[in-house]
């Protein structure tokens, strides 16, 4: 072979040579990702209950109801209320997450003794399962027996009823989610921080710039690519908020923490309305897609690429 390394494929022959290596991933992608996506779109156009056998011929003809699921969802109040709850979560979660991740990244970017240990410690919550984490948080946030309220009592503050209170249930979930995710995004921002050339800081301090100015004028602008990534990914994940809600509050109290995916799950697997749930999930997809599209086009305005 006389091709240059990394040159693009030039012929069908190259493709044929590459295909056995691509096959496992492509087949997995097709069967477990693409096929279900297409099927779920088709299911969203039916009134399937999730229990009747799906692979029967003539199924689609029998159950087809067109866009009726979508109409029902959009005209009912529940969709908008639940979207509002999800939006409330995002508005609280994203800023707090960004601040905490940035803080962690900055703390871990210095080299002092034991920094490696701290990097592991902050990442451990990311690795734990949400089942374990949510159960522990349920206990920690107990209004009478949890340590949070016990500690607050030492300072003479009467802690709220956290997960049992309508006002504090969603903030509780935000706190638990930030605890779990800040290690992951912190690590991403850490690598972004470490990619900033030290010379910039030296030059700036020679010119007399203080710590805050150095942060605002050098660190942040050069960090924007990583920040952009964190923003896009965390927004996509925030819209899909699910395990912590199911375990910590199950949508309560009084529906204060009912969110999009929680509704999808209940409609699909508890109320036997799979077609409705599929339509719901496609509407969620459209919303996430729109936001991501917005972010990608806003990229040009605030993200600085290049060294």
């Amino acid at each position, binding site marked *: 072979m006389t091709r240059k390394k990394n040159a693009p494929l030039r012929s069908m022959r190259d493709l044929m040579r590459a295909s*056995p*290596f691509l*096959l*496992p991933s492509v*087949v*997995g992608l097709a*069967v477990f990702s693409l096929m279900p996506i297409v099927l779920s779109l088709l299911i969203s156009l039916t009134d399937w*209950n*999730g*229990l*009747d*056998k*799906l*692979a029967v011929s003539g199924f689609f003809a029998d159950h087809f109801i067109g866009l009726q699921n979508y109409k029902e969802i959009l005209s009912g109040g529940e969709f908008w209320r639940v979207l509002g709850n999800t939006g409330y979560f995002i508005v609280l979660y994203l800023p707090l997450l960004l601040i905490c991740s940035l803080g962690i990244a900055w703390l871990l970017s210095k080299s002092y003794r034991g920094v490696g240990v701290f990097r592991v410690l902050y990442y451990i919550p990311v690795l734990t399962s949400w089942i374990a984490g949510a159960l522990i948080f*349920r*206990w920690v*946030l*107990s*209004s*009478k*027996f*949890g340590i949070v309220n016990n500690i607050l009592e030492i300072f003479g503050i009467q802690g709220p*009823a956290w*997960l*049992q*209170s*309508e006002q504090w249930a969603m903030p509780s979930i935000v706190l638990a989610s930030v605890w779990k995710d800040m290690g992951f995004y912190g690590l991403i921002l850490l690598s972004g921080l470490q990619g900033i050339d030290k010379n910039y800081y030296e030059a700036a301090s020679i010119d007399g710039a203080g710590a805050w100015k150095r942060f605002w004028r050098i660190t942040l602008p050069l960090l924007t690519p990583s920040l952009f990534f964190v923003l896009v990914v965390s927004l996509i994940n925030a819209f899909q908020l699910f395990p912590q809600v199911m375990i910590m509050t199950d949508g*309560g*109290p*009084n*529906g204060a923490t009912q969110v999009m995916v929680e509704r999808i799950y*209940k409609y699909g*697997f*508890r*109320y*036997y309305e799979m077609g409705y749930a599929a339509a719901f999930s496609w509407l969620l997809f459209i919303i996430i897609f729109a936001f991501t599209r917005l972010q990608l086009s806003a990229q040009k305005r605030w993200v600085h690429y290049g060294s």
Partner: protein
Amino acid sequence: MKKTLALLLALCMAIAVFGCAAQTTEPAAEEETTTQPEAAVVDAAAEAPAEDVTITFCNFNASGGQEETLQAMYDAFHEQYPNITVEIETIGYSDYFTQMQTRVAGGTAPDCYELNIENFAAYSAKGVLAEITGVDTSGINQTALSAFNVDGVQYGLPGCFSNVVLIYNKDLFDQAGVDYPTNDWTWDDAQAAAEAIRALGDDYFGIFAPITYNEFFKVAAQFGGSILNDDKTAFTVNSPECVAAAKMMVERVTVSNVQPTTEQQGGMGDWDWFMSGKLGMIPTGIWAFNTFAENCDFNWDIVVEPGMTQKATHFFSNAYVVNAESENAQAAMTWINFLASSPEAAQLRIDAGWDLPAITDESVLATYLDLGLPANRQAVFDSLNYLTIPPIIEENSLMSDIITSHLEEAASGAVSVEQAMDDCQAELEATIQLG
């Protein structure tokens, strides 16, 4: 040489992917070839088929401690029917229904499996269950049997039943100077006792009856009301009887506070409260006996649940059903009939302290009375005289979630009970089509 090796490795990986997919379909293929001759014999003969048959059975009730009891039942069964082999699968309750739904929809459901009352209506309405015929069901409790009979067709056999009794803390009653509850008590008597116990201190509560759909339909029956009308064509949740029932449940929390609010609960569940010794009374299932016997370091006993204008007690039962697509339906029916009605299985169930078999044989049931705490086990059988079966409709889960959410709203004090029940009635009518 290296290139060939790399190619071979890639091919192996690709084959592994396909191989995994192929494996799961193999057992199905096997079953088809061995059961072709069975296809004709579906309901006629009362005997099990003579050829060797393997059936699959899935359940949730045995999970968490009773897997060995179930295995012992199978061993007894296999002795009587050596030609029928049962592959038993036990799955935890929380995952059971999600995966069962997927299996039924995908056509890979087992020959027979277990369902609870809540989901039984949905499954039977979708036509995925086979009619149970050709087995002798005379040894089975008729009330339990009728719960799984839809329009004259028997779709399930009750494998067990359990009910709800009032469990009370004798030491707290002594401390408050109140007489122990008797079978003649009404909720007014219980309320007086609860208030006396509540007065013992800030941390003490008189009673804890969860304000959920499951409690509500029973209490409504105790007031002479019901969630649906007689022929199940309309909801009646805002009838005066239902509102009175909801009021009693809610006012325990909001007015007399003999029951803790969610904030006062502090995240502790109702059983935890009782086991801590700070709760006077709790109406809960008989499946709590083992846990309470192990963990309560005070004296406790049980009594039939008080009523109001009449008594009504919960009746829970899990059914064994047969897959309509099963090619070994007769063998499956023989197995589940054994589980549900044979004296051997019943005795094993009782001895293990599992739950009660839904049989009519009094002598077998009598051994339940000798199992240890609580002393007044007779109350479990006395409660059978006042059974209320939950109102079963197709959209059971949706109905129960809607009712529970409105009851919760009333209990939080956000709306009045009357308003909550009117809202509930409206939402039920708008969301669920009946009859």
